[in-house]
Each structure stands twice: as C-alpha cells, then as structure tokens.
C-alpha cells in the first residue's frame, strides 16, 4: 500500500480538474447561505414537531455536519457516477486493468481519493456556514462535530459509491442500488439502530421538547409555519466515538468483499464479440474487385425529414427491454388506482431516463455534435425537433390526466414543459446529463412518495 498516497493524490487532482468542480463549488456556496436560516426568515430547515433550534453556536455546530452528510449523500453519487466509464473513454482504464496491484488496493486508491475530495468540499461548506452565521471563529467548536459526524460517514459513502460504480455496469441497476443505499441510511428503523448520518443523535437532543411527533424532520422551506425556537445550551455529547468510528473498518470490509467480485480483466462479454467471418484469402482477392455504386440521394432538409431522423434516434436511445418494461407499466397505469398509479407512472419515467444520456446529451458525450453542426438543417430546426422528448413525457402522463378538468390537465403538461426546458437548457449549456438525471430521480422519487421535493429526506 506504499504507493497509495501518491496514486490517490493523482486521482484527487483529477477530481479538482474536472469540469464539475466549479459547478459543485457554486452549489455548495449557495447551500451554505440557506442551510441555517436567520430567525427572521420565513423558512426553517430542521424541525421536530413544530420545534427547531434557535440560532446559536451550539445549534449551528451540531446541525451543520448532519446536513453536510445529507447533502453529500447525493453529491457523492453525482461525483462518483461514471468514474469507470470516464477511464474507459480516456483509454486509461487499461492501466488499471493491467496493474500488478490487487483489486482491493486499486479500489482503495479510488475510495481514498474520493474521500479526500468529499472531505475537502465538506470542509469548505463548513467554513462557509461558519462565516455566514458568525457566532464565534473558535474552529475547535465546529471541528469536533465535523470529525465525529461527517468524516467517518464520508469514508463510508466514498467506499459505497466507488464500489457501485466499478462493480455495476448496468445503469438501471446502479440507480436502484443508489436508491436502496439512500433508503438504508435514512430509514427510520435503521436510523434508530445505526444512525450512520447522525440525524438520530441530533433529534434526540430535542428529547426535552414535548412534540407530537419526534420522528420526523424536514429539509427545506416551510411557509407560514408557526415554529417555536429551542435554545440549545450544550454541544451534542458524542454517545461514543466508537458509534461512528466503526464506519472505517466496515468500509474496508465492504471494499474487500467487493474486490472479490470485481473482474477487471475481462470487460467484453463473449456474446458481444463480433464473429470473425472474413478470411485472409478472401481479403486479398477482394482488392479492387469490390465496387460501390451509391444510389443518387435526393437531399431534403425540411422539418419533417429532421423529425424522422430525431424520432429514429429517440426510439433507439433506450434498449428494447426497457421500452417493453415502460410499455407494460404504462398500460398498467390505466388500470391502477391511487398510490399504485402514481408509483407506476414514476416507474415509467425512471425507465425513460436513458433518453437523457443517448438522445439529449449523446452528441456532447459521444463527440458527435459535429454531425449536427455541419448538417444541412438549421439550429432552430434541431431545437424544435427535440420537442419530441416533451411529447413522450406528455404521452406518459396520459393515464393520470384529469379529463374532467382541462385546467388540471394543462397544469400537469405545463409542469412537464418546464421540466423538459430545464433538461434541454442544462444539457445544452453544461454539455452533460448526470445532474439532470439525479434531479429527475429526486423529482420522480418525490412524485412516487407523495412527499414534496423539499421534504424527501
């Protein structure tokens, strides 16, 4: 493991050099402003029943690391997405595959670099919150909860995210695993036993408050809520450092187990190999014998012909299996009722997520934008043709449209239009799709769970 720090530092450097870094930094800075609201604000970000913490040093230092954990749970998924794919695309994965190091070592390099990256970002957020909500610049008061709650969790998070990315190639399965992971760490029953993220310890501090429900908490804005402020006098007294430190050995064990499943020496499955049908003799005799007589093509550059091309790409952007699953679910949605209906529609949307990767963002991620740019069609025609995706969304919601009320139906379609425009704008300006997919998953999860987006935790 001698070379670990050097390789991990190199990987860490790559993280900072990635285009995402500046966007992540902007997101972190914005969050830094809103996580701990001023008492005069019309929103709160953490309540138990109708109680929340008053703005003092104790509250800020206790709440911040717990929130950082919640935010970084999603951020880590975003950052670690496609680490392996990026290496494959850059042709650097071959070095990984041919390395003499063990699978465990190689995976640990990735885990450590991601852990350092997340820790540095988390510390930046901690400092921003400290500066914005100035109470005291005594760093030690902030550092202890940060070391107790956040650092072990980020190591655990980095391990899980790296393992999922390197072990699972099937994107759909990856998303399911991320979803299961988030449910696992925030599930009420598991939280009471393991409290991986520290939320339970924070809530236990409200023990002296007589709230109707002590088992719910909220992240986000609540308007017009009558919130009572509780002044906390003492810092959270760590139950036991062991209750968080155990995450380090657990993470190592998880990576070790994962390293046995990791097959880095074979990435091409036998069934995907192209049959070799050409023979040397055939090749030699074919020189100058083969002729190509193109059929004179009648070029037409109108909107209809572009629609046909875009429809072709759209319809081939998701696999046949996913298309079939989406169709079956969609038909079921007509017969389902209530929550099941909502669940089915959300599932249809999630099966359609690859459309972002292949249809909307494919031209940037696959370097095929040149074909669109030098095509005989104008840029405006391409934007119009992308509305096909919006039409897909409209068709998907047909089972839940309220046919008795035109207003409600139009409202749902209007919301979808907004979602589509957001996707189109993000993909066009950022030239990627990952953040869009994560936001869409949050929106669909929110839709499925019936909980507003700002309360999904």
């Amino acid at each position: 493991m001698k070379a670990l720090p050097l390789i991990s530092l190199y990987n860490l450097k790559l993280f900072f050099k990635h285009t995402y870094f500046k966007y992540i930094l902007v997101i972190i800075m914005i969050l830094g402003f809103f996580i701990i609201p001023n008492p005069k604000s019309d929103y709160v970000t953490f309540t138990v029943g109708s109680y929340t913490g008053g703005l003092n040093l104790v509250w800020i230092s206790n709440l911040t690391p717990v929130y950082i954990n919640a935010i970084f749970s999603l951020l880590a998924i975003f950052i670690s997405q496609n680490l392996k794919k990026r290496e494959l695309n850059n042709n650097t994965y071959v070095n990984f595959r041919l390395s003499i190091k063990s699978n465990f070592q190689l995976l640990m390099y990735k885990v450590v670099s991601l852990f350092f990256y997340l820790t540095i970002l988390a510390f930046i957020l901690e400092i921003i919150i400290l500066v914005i909500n100035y109470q005291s610049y005594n760093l030690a008061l902030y550092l202890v909860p940060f070391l107790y709650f956040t650092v072990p969790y980020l190591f655990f998070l980095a391990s899980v995210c790296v393992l999922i990315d390197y072990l699972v190639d099937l994107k759909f399965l990856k998303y399911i695993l991320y979803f299961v992971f988030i449910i696992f760490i925030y599930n009420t029953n598991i939280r009471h036993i393991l409290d991986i993220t520290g939320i339970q310890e924070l809530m236990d501090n409200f023990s002296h408050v007589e709230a109707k429900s002590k088992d719910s908490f909220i992240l986000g804005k609540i308007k017009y809520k009558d919130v009572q402020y509780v002044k906390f006098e003492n810092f959270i007294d760590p139950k036991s450092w062991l209750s968080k430190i155990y995450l380090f050995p657990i993470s190592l064990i998880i990576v070790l187990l994962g390293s046995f499943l990791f097959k880095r020496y074979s990435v091409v499955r036998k069934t995907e190999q192209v049959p070799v049908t050409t023979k040397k003799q055939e090749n030699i005799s074919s020189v100058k014998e083969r002729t190509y007589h193109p059929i004179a093509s009648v070029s037409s550059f109108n909107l209809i012909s572009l629609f046909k091309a875009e429809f072709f790409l759209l319809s081939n952007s998701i696999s046949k299996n996913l298309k079939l699953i989406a169709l079956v679910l969609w038909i079921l949605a007509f017969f389902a009722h209530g929550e099941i209906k909502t669940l089915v529609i959300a599932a249809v949307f999630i099966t359609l997520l690859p459309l972002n990767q292949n249809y909307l963002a494919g031209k940037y991620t696959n370097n095929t934008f040149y074909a669109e740019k030098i095509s005989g069609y104008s840029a405006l025609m391409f934007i119009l043709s992308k509305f096909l995706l919006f039409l897909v969304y409209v068709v998907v919601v047909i089972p839940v449209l309220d046919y008795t009320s035109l207003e409600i139906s139009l409202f749902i379609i209007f919301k979808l239009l907004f979602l589509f425009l957001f996707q189109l704008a993000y993909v066009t300006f950022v030239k990627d799709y990952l953040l869009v997919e994560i936001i869409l998953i949050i929106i669909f999860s929110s839709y499925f769970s019936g909980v507003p987006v700002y309360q999904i935790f």
Partner: protein
Amino acid sequence: MSISLNNVNYKINNNTILQNINLSLKKGVYGILGLNGAGKTTLLNVISTLTKPHNGSLSYNNTDVVKNPLILRKDLSYMPQNFGLIPDLTVTQNLMYFGMLKGVSSKTLKENIPNVLEFFNIQHTKDTNVKNLSGGTQQRVALSLALVNDPKVLILDEPTSALDPIERINFYELIKKISDNSIVIVSSHNIYEIEKYVDNIIVLRNGQISFSDTVDQLIPEAVSGLGNSVSENSLNLEKAFEYFAK
C-alpha cells in the same frame, strides 16, 4: 464545383493556428500533409464549416460559406479523427441516423447501407453495437457513413490510420473514383500512402501553406528551395516532404 479560401486566419488565445491560407479546390483528390500540430485538422474544420475563420473568406461555388454555411453543408460529408459514432447504437442505426441528418431519405439509406457495408467488408457487423467493434472496424463504419449520402464534398481526417494495408488500397481506389464528380480532401502523415492517389498535395508548416501543387512537383521544388547543394536524384519524396513540413 469549387471551394476557395482567401487569406484565411484562425487563432486560439492569440496563438495563430492558420495564417493566410489561400486555396482553390476543384474536382479531384487533395492530400493535406503536415507534422503533428501543423494545423491540418483545423484547416479541415474550417473548410467543413465546423470552425469559423477569424478573418478571410471561404466560398463554395462562389457563394460565401461563412455567412451561408448551409449551402456547403447540404453537399458535404466529413469524417473526424475520432470517427464520431454513437457507441450505444448498432452500425446500421448509426448509418441510418447520421444518413438522415445528411438529408438522405430512410428508403434510400436502406438501399445504400448494405452496399456500402459490403464494400468495406463489414456487412457482418451491421447489428453490432459500435462500442463492441475494434478500432479498424469502427473506422470502416465511419468511412461508410461518410459515403452513404454520395457527397459532392468529402473531407476525411486521417481516414486510414486504423485500416490494414488491403483496406487502405480499397479505400483510396474508391475515393479516386468518387473524385471524378467530387472534391475529396484527405489529411495524412504519410506521403507514401497517398502519393499514388492524390491529384494535389498541400503541405502545412506552422499553420501556413509551404507547398501546394501536384506530387510530381514536390521534389523539383524542394531541390530548387535547397539550392545547388542537392540534385533531384539524391532527394526522395520523404526528404522533400520533410523540407516543406519542418
């Protein structure tokens, strides 16, 4: 049919990539040669309207293409160095989609695709995802794609880098034939590979044209540039190319 470039300049962050490029291209095969970083790909990008020159003019059949790029784009096919294919789609799906973007009807494509795949000896890969093909086969798919719309202007950036010798010969024989009715521009590092098939050679040195004429003129002009110190017999094509490229 003609393409003209007059005093074309292109810069990136004050670094001059192309300087005072003047070219007049008519039907035939043009080979663009130069060392790494000489500006070959940038020149191809400018001609294909992917990149706008900072100044100078580019015209196609006497129409200003900088202002009206669609005029050229409708007759154009371009193959980039990285092949520009969608890895998750099959070979046929790639040809169908990009073919339709080139304005070819799906009916014509369905008739043309088997023909062009057969020419490049990759008909057996038609239902295989591009990401599962070798580099050489991917390049043949990209070449099939470049030809599927029967272009009047064909621009190919290092089109044979991953092809075996037999496929290279086949390919150059084909573009020679195509050039009877089209302008074909090919970039390459290797003068011996293209000398038999190109009508004209354009050598770039640090973003400037150092030679633009027929292959036959390369050695005499190098000799004349070198002065009396060398004779035509003592200079081969490679040395002559080096003289203009370095």
